[in-house]
């Protein structure tokens, strides 16, 4: 064979190889294309049968919630769920298999293209005249590009640094009035100088600001300094710290905390608390006389805390900004949760006695973290805690059925218990001079002498209080009943000193202000009488609207939450 023929043969076989490879490339490409289309279709289909977001299953699930015993519906859901999952995994398998096949076709295509490329000689084009490489000019441009690029990077990073700030650096630093450090908590004097919770400092119904008015009239405006409407109702009582009043309100749709200026009555801020993580979708069933915002708020002087019937609990700063919120779980409570909050050092104490069992929770005031969750083997209760120094220690005392129990507020550990109560407990305990007083309707009024082993010193079984908490001094105990009687006892012996009948019943509790007792009935009439062994009425003052809350006494003023308004009373 001549060289020319050999050349021709080589060229011819090369061309043939090229053509065959080209066809292979086409075939591989077409198959890969078809496969691609199938996989795209599969992808679209797979999206539509995502079982996690199946509308049909969701609808059936909703129906099941309404009718949880429907077995046929359960079976239908199971069948549909199984079908959707099977479809999903079949699609997954198809995609996986398709991927392998696609990979194979692409590999063939690649090899074919590479081979075709290798058959085509691509010699460098030297026809152009040789141009010397202008490296220096290129370097000059590169320098500029790097300089500008570096500057751009610098500016971009700077802007990003400014735009993306972190809130974490501010965590735990809460703006507070005064110069108290963020880790501080108020001392006894500071607490007593304010009205930080239900029934005032320590929760025992004793006011330390005694220079308050004894006469007023809501209808004529006498001694009413200001009166403002509170948009959202609530049976919680106002608390006061410094020149700010805090109270909460809630209905089926909203939960809100108000801050009111003590001087002007202006609502300084109101913070809605509707988007709390874990909050139940459906509001609990509550009775009209309990509502969604029965627990009275509390404050440690830097933060305020509010609890609602939904189990939502919130901590706000004094400007109304949320510090933390959480849901404690929906209270299993047939009237609505009503036990109020109280703080001890850096702990927020939450009595949480429900139908499902009793608990005492302690949350860190700064973070809301759970410090302890102390189980309590008691029945459901609506009473609020008192926090008293009984001589050598501070005790958190709770009235509950069947036990009156005392806990170490720091650890939650039970200190003592006395079995003496029964029924649905609403009145909170009272304390004075080494004795604890508890009461409940259809049960008894009990005086418990504290000591190594606390024991019942005396009891009384008539004219018992249903909601109002008793008030105790060193000498007397006063008890107000929901059917309108007020009874006074010797605190040591339980001897009845006097009993008085009034026009209306009492839900609000008596408060000791100096030598006087302030007690408001359900129609908003405040009776002021001497805290004495003999009944001496000082004044009868009408508010002008119903009221069931506890008044707050601060700096010569009385703050009363009526059914619709918040009143400031003073001379």
């Amino acid at each position, binding site marked *: 064979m001549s060289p020319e023929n050999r050349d021709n043969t080589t060229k011819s076989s090369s061309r043939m190889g090229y053509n065959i490879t080209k066809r292979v490339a086409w075939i591989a490409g077409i198959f890969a294309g078809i496969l691609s289309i199938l996989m795209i279709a599969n992808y679209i289909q797979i999206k539509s049968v995502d079982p996690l977001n199946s509308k049909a299953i969701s609808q059936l699930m909703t129906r099941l919630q309404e009718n949880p015993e429907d077995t046929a519906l359960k079976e239908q859901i199971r069948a549909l769920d*199984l079908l959707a999952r099977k479809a999903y995994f079949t699609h997954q398998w198809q995609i996986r298999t398709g991927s392998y096949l696609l990979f194979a076709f692409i590999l063939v295509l690649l090899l074919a293209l590479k081979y075709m490329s290798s058959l085509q000689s691509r010699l460098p084009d030297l026809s152009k005249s040789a141009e010397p490489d202008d490296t220096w000019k290129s370097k000059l441009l590169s320098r500029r590009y790097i300089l500008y690029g570096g500057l751009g990077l610098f500016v971009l990073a700077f802007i990003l640094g400014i735009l993306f700030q972190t809130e974490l650096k501010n965590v735990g630093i809460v703006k507070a009035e005064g110069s108290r450090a963020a880790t501080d908590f108020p001392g006894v004097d500071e607490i007593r100088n304010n009205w930080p919770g239900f029934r005032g400092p320590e929760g025992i119904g004793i006011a330390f600001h005694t220079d308050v008015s004894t006469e007023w009239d809501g209808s004529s405006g006498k001694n009413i300094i200001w009166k403002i409407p509170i948009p959202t109702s609530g049976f919680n009582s106002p608390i006061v710290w410094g020149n700010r009043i805090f109270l909460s309100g809630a209905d089926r749709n909203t939960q809100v905390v108000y801050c009111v200026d003590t001087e002007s009555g202006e609502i300084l801020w109101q913070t809605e608390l509707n988007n709390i993580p874990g909050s139940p979708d459906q509001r609990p069933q509550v009775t009209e006389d309990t509502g969604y915002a029965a627990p009275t708020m509390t404050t440690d002087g830097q933060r305020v805390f509010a609890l609602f019937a939904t189990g939502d609990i919130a901590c706000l700063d004094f400007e109304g900004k949320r510090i933390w919120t959480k849901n404690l779980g929906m209270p299993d409570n047939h009237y609505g949760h009503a036990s109020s909050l109280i703080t001890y050092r850096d702990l927020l104490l939450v009595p949480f006695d429900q139908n499902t069992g009793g608990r005492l929770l302690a949350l860190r005031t700064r973070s809301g973290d*759970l410090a302890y969750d102390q189980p309590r083997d008691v029945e459901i209760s609506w009473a609020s805690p008192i926090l008293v120094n009984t001589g050598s220690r501070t005790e958190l005392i709770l009235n509950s059925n069947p036990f009156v129990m005392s806990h170490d507020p720091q650890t939650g550990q039970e200190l003592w218990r006395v079995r003496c109560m029964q029924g649905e407990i609403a009145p909170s305990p009272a304390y004075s001079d080494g004795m604890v007083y508890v009461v409940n309707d259809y049960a008894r009024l009990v005086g418990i002498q504290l000591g190594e082993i606390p024991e019942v010193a005396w009891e009384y079984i008539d004219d018992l209080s249903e909601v109002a908490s008793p008030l105790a001094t060193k000498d007397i105990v006063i008890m107000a009943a929901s059917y309108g009687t007020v009874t006074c006892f010797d605190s040591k012996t339980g001897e009845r000193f006097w009993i008085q009948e009034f026009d209306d019943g009492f839900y609000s509790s008596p408060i000791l202000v100096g030598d006087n007792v302030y007690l408001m009935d359900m129609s908003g009439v405040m009776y002021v009488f001497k805290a004495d062994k003999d009944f001496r009425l000082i004044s009868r003052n009408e508010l002008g609207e119903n009221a069931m809350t506890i008044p707050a006494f601060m700096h010569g003023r009385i703050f009363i939450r009526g059914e619709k308004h918040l009143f400031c009373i003073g001379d």
Partner: protein
Amino acid sequence: MIQSRIHRGKIFIFAFLFVFPLFCMSQVPERFPKPDFQTDYTRPDLLTPTPRATALEYIDIFVLVAALSLASYFAHKQRSRRNIFLLMVFSLAYFGFFRKGCVCSIGAIQNVSYVVFNPAYAIPLTVIVFFILPLVFTLFYGRTFCAAVCPLGAIQDAVVLKPTQVPSRLENVLGVLPYIYLGLAVLFAATGAGFIICQYDPFIGFFRFGADFNMVILGMSMLLLGTVVARPYCRYLCPYGVLLNWLSRLSKKHVRITPDECNNCRLCEESCPFGAIKKPDEDVPLETKQVDVKRLAVLFIVLPVVLLGSGWVGSRLYAPLSRGHATVSLAEEILLENSGKRTEMTNATKAFRASGKPTEELFAEANSIQHNFKVGGWIVGGFIGLVLCLKLIGLFMRKRQIEYDVDKGKCLSCGRCFAYCPYEQVRLGIITPEEADKMGSREVKPKQFRA
């Protein structure tokens, strides 16, 4: 014309074939609750490779040593592009598809960084070997690891169809990106935030036949770009390439275009798709040199300021960067929920709240991590500032180039340029030395460059 049409066709086909179906593939690893099927249900395989037995790890090391040795042998002794290519295919199959891209030398940077700052971490021997061995080979023989062993390089090399030359000024600017990526990867690993090189490995999804949707898109984009810009990840992102580049410059032996002396025939001029061939250049006027010397002096004077400035800016980025850390991210989510800015709890926050761990503890941990990011930001920022300054200084430096040669830092030792050299043809016995000389003299003489 036909050829260009074919190339256009190829690119179109690749665009169609890769993007859409792999878009679907990306959906494969979606999280899904364990189904309650009948007894014949088999759980799907995991996407991430399970731990290997120690004996098999040694096999991996053996394969790595063998591959590196062969790559160096093929590049230096045989000068065989074909064998390098075949070895590359093997590496793609073994380290890529069989080993599913793990362990890899690029990712090993993070393990090493992590163990430096967290001595309690027990780093596997395989990882150390995979990190060090390619560096050692590079120090002796140049980047033969990139040429034929690295699966990430291999998958990109496989799709190079019509490479174009990237202008050197752009190449220089883009060349800064791997340093930034390296700095961030070390920062994230050292602070325990995560192994971002692995998380954002654009090709791992192909090796494992499944990946996050965004990563598949990124990988596809890389491969599509790679058809016209050869190995874009290796050149403009690979953090390990930074180390290899440094060591390759110092390499004892490095491949050259010609096995003999360069006669400046220009045949190899466009042969390198990575722009790693240095061309003969011309001298510059004295005035230009004097201006450059002054500028260089200014650069040296402002260097400390640049370092401090970039370090400071780097430290200011601690907030966005630290969000890459799971603890910081969780702490911020908890904070958002607590403040009511977020209404729905995430699975992470639910789990955290259920754990009973105090949030103050979480916040303290997050603050500590952010502090580490702040310190790390200073270092990384300063490092990037230094890199920029050194790049600029390098561009002021001048070394006359009188013949065609490889840029030892950039050259991947892939051997593509070998066949273009007439003296390589002589070495292979295809043409005679005289024919080779003619090829040189036929076109242009070296002195013409220096006119």
